[in-house]
Every structure is written in structure tokens, then in C-alpha cells.
């Protein structure tokens, strides 16, 4: 039984609509070879083919007339014996040999057997290309070549090989020369001229740019010996900054900040790490399942998972997946949360205990809040606040999905939160920030941030942190802790904010309890910070393969508020803030 091909006209119209007929398998399609009914039928000839055929006919006739005059040869093979030289010549030209050897290499005297022969040869080649099924000519010519090789003296081949060797030698020489010139070109850092600086087109030579960056760093690392005499350190640094900006397409402001932040050896690693995405990680929801069970379930769905690292017992890293990882039945029934590995860290530093009152000041979309809820095992009270109502809705959906029952979701301004509610045991402030740690996630940060954005960010962060401190109960028997975290790596948004809180509120820095990460700066560009700033932890994409992150843990030890002068400054800050509303704050 097979499908019948409908050839009638009345079936030509395709069946549309939702019905069963439209879902029916289409008509059978047959291969072209099968459709050809008569193999003996003449193939259709193209217009060129027709011309060729005409030519062939004419030639055949001339050949015939020739044959009549000379003695006809019985075997076709023999016919073309004399053409060997001719053949060779043509081949050489075709292969692109040069005429270097013109002086000594003279062509052999042609021995023409037939007048039509030369033409014939050309004709043959054309035929080879156009009509692959017409074998006769092909066979003939190839056999010719073989015979030629055998019959001819070695001399010809020798000449050829000699020529080849000569050519190779020349190529080698030129390559060496080129290399030398290249080396000379890059041995010293070439400063662009004034005109070049203004109108640079770096797209064309990114490789050259990278080379220059490395050279400049090399010079700067050993400045005394490698510098050019008339160039100052600043010139080198400017050049480096310019080149890095061009190569990685950052704006100057951010690049300056980054150069200040990293030693020269690390800056390229950091910038390169920002070009690649971090691995996708998920957090097991311990309220509903265990990590091993979840991993097994995901592996059964064709997801390639592995435990994240030894510092977490709930993280899994996804290498690749055949199914969308954010829409599996396991995800929908709340067995895991899609979450960056770095966002585990502030919650681990917060170390929430069951039966506590905990506040997550900037909670959306609820990843960290749900982790806190899982650690509290659904006891106590967890308040998840976010200033943005639409994003706060995501908290509701996520926490319900993950089965959190002790959560209150609010939509208050975190800067005035303590007016509504206080007395929390612990508080997490994951402040909105410029996002300089997550450039891999959002490359727009590279060029969109300027001084004013950063200022807006850290003003908001300071207010949030102070308010969080105010809403924490310092008499709590288990807590009194505040964890401050950002996904920024700039000092202004991190250490400086902590320092501000230390100056204005009765808090002290304590150990975060995270065993890895880089210590915070105790001194940056001549600004001293509190010596306990070393308890803060910084995370970098190139060192830890996490998003850039900052975590600090504070403990409140007294009720006393900041003195009057400081509260005045806060008031001033608020006024400034109200003047220019935060428009482009990148929220985590």
C-alpha cells in the first residue's frame, strides 16, 4: 500500500484550516531520477550545448575530410599521441606557473598531425566540464596523460620540480622578511600621531591594538628600563587606557575606574572575563527536594548538571541542556531556582536562623529572599520589599512557586522603610548598583555609565544601608546583623558606602563567614578606610568565575543614632537625590 499521488486538477488546491484533513501527510514527492521515464530519451540541450554540438559536427566533417587524405588510424587512443607537448603547455599555464624560466625553457617544436587537433583539444576540455556523463572524451584524455608521462624523458619533470623548489625558496625568503619587519615594527611602542588619536579606526587592526596593549603593559611593568626616554609614564597610561577603551568598547570613565582598581597584570584578564558568560547555575529548593534527587531528575530530562562547588550544598551548575531549563516541570513545581552563583554569597553571609524576623530590602526577583526562606525552613517571618511594583510581582510568583509560606511582600521605598517597620533580627541590603560586576550579563554598562550615575547609585545605597541599620533590632539575642551586597566592583559603591555607615551609625564590621574571596580595600588611592574593611569580601569574574560581587557584614551594637551634624548631611543628600531622580540605576 502506498500513498497515491493526486494528479487531478481538483486536488490542486491545498486543504486549509484546523481539520483532520489539513494535518494529513502531504503528497509523495519523487526523486528526479525516478521520474525520468525513458532513459534512452534524449537529454535536453542548453543553448551553449547546441552551439558546441554544431561546432563538433563541423569539426567531425573536417576531420573526415582529413582522414580521407591521410591514412586513417584504427585506434582513437593513438590519434592524440602527438599532442602531448601541447597538452603540457596548457596545463602549466592553467596551474599558474610563472614565466621566470623563459630564457632557458623553450618549447619543443610542435609536431602537428592534423590541423583540427588543437581545436579538438580545447573542445575536449569544455566537454569534460559540461557533460560529465559523456565519458568517451574523458577517458581518452586521461589515458593520454599517462602515456605522456611514461614516454617523455625525465627532463621535463626535473625542470618542473626545479621550478617548484625555486618558488618555495622565494616564498620562504619573503615570509622571513615580512616577519623581520613585523618584529621591528612592534619592538617599540608606537605612539599614534596627533591626527591618529583624534580619528582612529581601530576595527581594522584589533590584533595590532592588542599587541600594543600588551607592549605598553610590558613597558609599564618595568618602566625604568623599557621606557622611551622622552615619554612619561602618564603618556603610556593614557595610551593604554585609550587602547583598552577601543579594544573592549568601554567608555573612558569606567575604564579609568577599572585601571585604578586592578593591577596592570590583572586588567586584561578581568576585561576578557567580562566578554564570556558565567555558567548557568541553579539553586536546589531544600523545602521541596534534595540536591541529589533534583540532579537525577534533571539528568533524566537530558540536562548535563554537576554540583557547583564545595562551598555550597545546594548549587548545581548546568553545562548544557536539551530542554529549556526555566520551563521544566521540576522548575514549575518549585524544585529549583535559576540563580547566579554569586547571589548565594550574601545569603550565606547573612546566615539566617529559624524563627527570626528577617528583612530583604531590595528583594526582586526573589532569588535571595527564597534562599533565606529555605534556610529558615518556613518559620519566623520574612519580609521581602522592593521599590518597583512590577518587579515585586516577580517575588510573589517565585516565592509561591518555591513554596514559601512565611513571606510578606511589600512595595515600599527602602529609604523610608524603618518608618513603617523595625525590630528585625537580620537584614539583607542587596542594593541597586551600577552593575559593573555583571558586564558579561549586560554589556550596556560598558558605555552607559558616567560620574553622575555612580553618584546617584551610591547616594541611594547609603540611604538604603542606613535605613536598613535603623530597622534592625540591636538587642536581638540571635542577630542584629546587616549584610550589604552589590553586584558592582567599584570602591565608591562598596567600601565607601560601608565607611559612611560606620561613621554615621553604631555598627561594626564582622567576619562574613565566607571562606574565599578577595579582602576589601583598607586603603584606596590615598583614602584610608576602616582597618576591619578586610572582613569584606570581593569577588571577580576572572578569579572566581562568579559575577563581580561585594559582600560586607555589619553588626549593630547600640541604639544611639548618628550625631546631629551627620543627620544634617543625610538630609542634604536626600534633597540632592530628590532633585535628580534616579533614572538609570541598574538594579540587580
Amino acid at each position, binding site marked *: 500500500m502506498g500513498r497515491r499521488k493526486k494528479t487531478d486538477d481538483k486536488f490542486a488546491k491545498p486543504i486549509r484550516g484546523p481539520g483532520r484533513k489539513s494535518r494529513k501527510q502531504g503528497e509523495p514527492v519523487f526523486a528526479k531520477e525516478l521520474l525520468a521515464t525513458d532513459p534512452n530519451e534524449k537529454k535536453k540541450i542548453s543553448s551553449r550545448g547546441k552551439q558546441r554540438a554544431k561546432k563538433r559536427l563541423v569539426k567531425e566533417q573536417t576531420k573526415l575530410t582529413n582522414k580521407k587524405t591521410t591514412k586513417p588510424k584504427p585506434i582513437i587512443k593513438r590519434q592524440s599521441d602527438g599532442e602531448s607537448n601541447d597538452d603540457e603547455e596548457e596545463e602549466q599555464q592553467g596551474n599558474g606557473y610563472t614565466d621566470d624560466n623563459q630564457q632557458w625553457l623553450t618549447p619543443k617544436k610542435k609536431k602537428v598531425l592534423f590541423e583540427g587537433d588543437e581545436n579538438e583539444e580545447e573542445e575536449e576540455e569544455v566537454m569534460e566540464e559540461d557533460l560529465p556523463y559523456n565519458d568517451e572524451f574523458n577517458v581518452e584524455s586521461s589515458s593520454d596523460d599517462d602515456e605522456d608521462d611514461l614516454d617523455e624523458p625525465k627532463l621535463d619533470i626535473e625542470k618542473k620540480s626545479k621550478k617548484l623548489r625555486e618558488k618555495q625558496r622565494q616564498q620562504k625568503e619573503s615570509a622571513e622578511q615580512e616577519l623581520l619587519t613585523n618584529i621591528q615594527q612592534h619592538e617599540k611602542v608606537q605612539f599614534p600621531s596627533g591626527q591618529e588619536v583624534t580619528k582612529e579606526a581601530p576595527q581594522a587592526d584589533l590584533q595590532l591594538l592588542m599587541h600594543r596593549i600588551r607592549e605598553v603593559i610590558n613597558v609599564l611593568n618595568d618602566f625604568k628600563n623599557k621606557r622611551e626616554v622622552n615619554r612619561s609614564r602618564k603618556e603610556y597610561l593614557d595610551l593604554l587606557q585609550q587602547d583598552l577603551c577601543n579594544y573592549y568598547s568601554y567608555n573612558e570613565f569606567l575604564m579609568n575606574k577599572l585601571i585604578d582598581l586592578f593591577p596592570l597584570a590583572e586588567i586584561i584578564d578581568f576585561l576578557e572575563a567580562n566578554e564570556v558568560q558565567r555558567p548557568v547555575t541553579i539553586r536546589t529548593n531544600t523545602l521541596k527536594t534534595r540536591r541529589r534527587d533534583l540532579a537525577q531528575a534533571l539528568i533524566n530530562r537530558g540536562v548535563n548538571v554537576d554540583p557547583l562547588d564545595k562551598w555550597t550544598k545546594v548549587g548545581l551548575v548546568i553545562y548544557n541542556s536539551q530542554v529549556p531549563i*526555566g*520551563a521544566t*516541570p*521540576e522548575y*514549575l*513545581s*518549585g524544585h529549583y531556582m535559576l540563580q547566579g552563583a554569586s547571589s548565594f554569597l550574601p545569603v550565606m553571609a547573612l546566615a539566617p536562623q529559624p524563627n527570626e*524576623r528577617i528583612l530583604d530590602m531590595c528583594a526582586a526577583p526573589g532569588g535571595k529572599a527564597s534562599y533565606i526562606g529555605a534556610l529558615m525552613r518556613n518559620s519566623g*517571618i520574612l*519580609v521581602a520589599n522592593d521599590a518597583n*511594583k*512590577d518587579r*515585586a*510581582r*516577580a*517575588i*510573589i*510568583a*517565585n516565592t*509561591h*512557586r518555591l*513554596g514559601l*509560606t*512565611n*513571606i*510578606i*511582600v*511589600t*512595595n*515600599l521605598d527602602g529609604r523610608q522603610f524603618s518608618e*513603617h*517597620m523595625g525590630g528585625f533580627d537580620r537584614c539583607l541590603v542587596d542594593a541597586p548598583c551600577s552593575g559593573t560586576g555583571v558586564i558579561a550579563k549586560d554589556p550596556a554598562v560598558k558605555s552607559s555609565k558616567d560620574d553622575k550615575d555612580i553618584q546617584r547609585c551610591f547616594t541611594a545605597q547609603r540611604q538604603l544601608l542606613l535605613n536598613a541599620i535603623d530597622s534592625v533590632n540591636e538587642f536581638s539575642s540571635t542577630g542584629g546583623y546587616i549584610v550589604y551586597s552589590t553586584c558592582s566592583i567599584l570602591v565608591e559603591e562598596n567600601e565607601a558606602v560601608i565607611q559612611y555607615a560606620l561613621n554615621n551609625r553604631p555598627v561594626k564590621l564582622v567576619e562574613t563567614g565566607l571562606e574565599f574571596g578577595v579582602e576589601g580595600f583598607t586603603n584606596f588611592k590615598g583614602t584610608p578606610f576602616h582597618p576591619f574593611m578586610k572582613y569584606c569580601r570581593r569577588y571577580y569574574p576572572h578569579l572566581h568565575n562568579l559575577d563581580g560581587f561585594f559582600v560586607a557584614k555589619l553588626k549593630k551594637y547600640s541604639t544611639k543614632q548618628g550625631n546631629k551634624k551627620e543627620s544634617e548631611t543625610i538630609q542634604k543628600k536626600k534633597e540632592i537625590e530628590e532633585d535628580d531622580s534616579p533614572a538609570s540605576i541598574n538594579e540587580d
Partner: protein
Amino acid sequence: MRPLTDDETKILFEKLSKYIGDNIRMLLERPDGLYTFRLHRERVYYCSEAIIKFASNFPRKELLSFGTCFGRFTKTRKFRLHITALDFIAPYAKFKVWLKPNAEQQFLYGHNVVKSGLGRITENTPKYNGVIVYTMNDVPLGFGVAAKSTIECRATDPMSLVVFHQADVGEFLRNEDALT
């Protein structure tokens, strides 16, 4: 935020009893504290007294959610159960339906269940009674209404509907904004 009126309580309990029968008692008399229903902006929330007390301190407008949202009252005062209630309904379910793996996806996209996708069904399920839908490895997926009783299901042809879709966990993605 306020406690439910008698009318509202009656409507809510009628709805819940379709799924969990007289297990509603288990929701209200819990050993780990006092749990009650509260109405906030036409939505019914279920949570412990401690959380209710705490949440009542926030301004009404800014309080978005507390505890678990069970569903909402429509403008015609009918109660519509949300998928967020699944965590509390599934453990007490009276009548269950298990889906074959290839029918899971269909159900999660909001489609009804046909006989061919039906893995198992609780004995004696009456027609038009609320059922909880599970995967074959006992993960709750949502709830629906039995279109046929268990006995009718046996006899029917593979393409006929056996469960009407009401809510499924896919709504956490599809319908995030309307959930609460």
C-alpha cells in the same frame, strides 16, 4: 486586610471541599499554630496569625502579598482558586489523576487531558468533581475537574476528554502578573 465574612467563607469552603472534601478542617486546625484566611484586595490569603499580625502594620496599598494566596473573588462573588494554593491542597486531595509523561507538557500549557494521556485515576471519582493532577512520579501539576467518572473513563475512546483544565503550574510563567 480583613477576616472573611460568613458568605465569603461559605463560598470559599464550598469550592475547597470540591477538591479536599472535609479535609478543610486540617487546614484550620493545625498543630503548629493558628492559621486563618484573610481577605486583602479581593484575594484570599492563608497564613499564620503571627504573620497576619505583622503584615497588618504595613500600609494597605503597599502590602502586596502575605502567606499563601489561595485565590480571588470575582466581581460576581464567585471564588476562583489560584495555582498558588496547590501546595496546601495537594496533600489533602481526595481524588487524584496521574498523567503519562507525554501528556504532562500538554497539561502544563493549559490544555485539557484526554484519555490517552491518563496514567491512573482514583477509584470512584464522581463526574464533575475537582481533581488534583499529578505526574507519574507524584509531583503535583495543577487541578482540574473530572469530565467523566472513573467507570466512564474505562469505557471511553482514547481521544475523549477526561479532565477539564483549571489551573496548572505553568501559570507561574505564563500568568505571573495575574497570580496575586
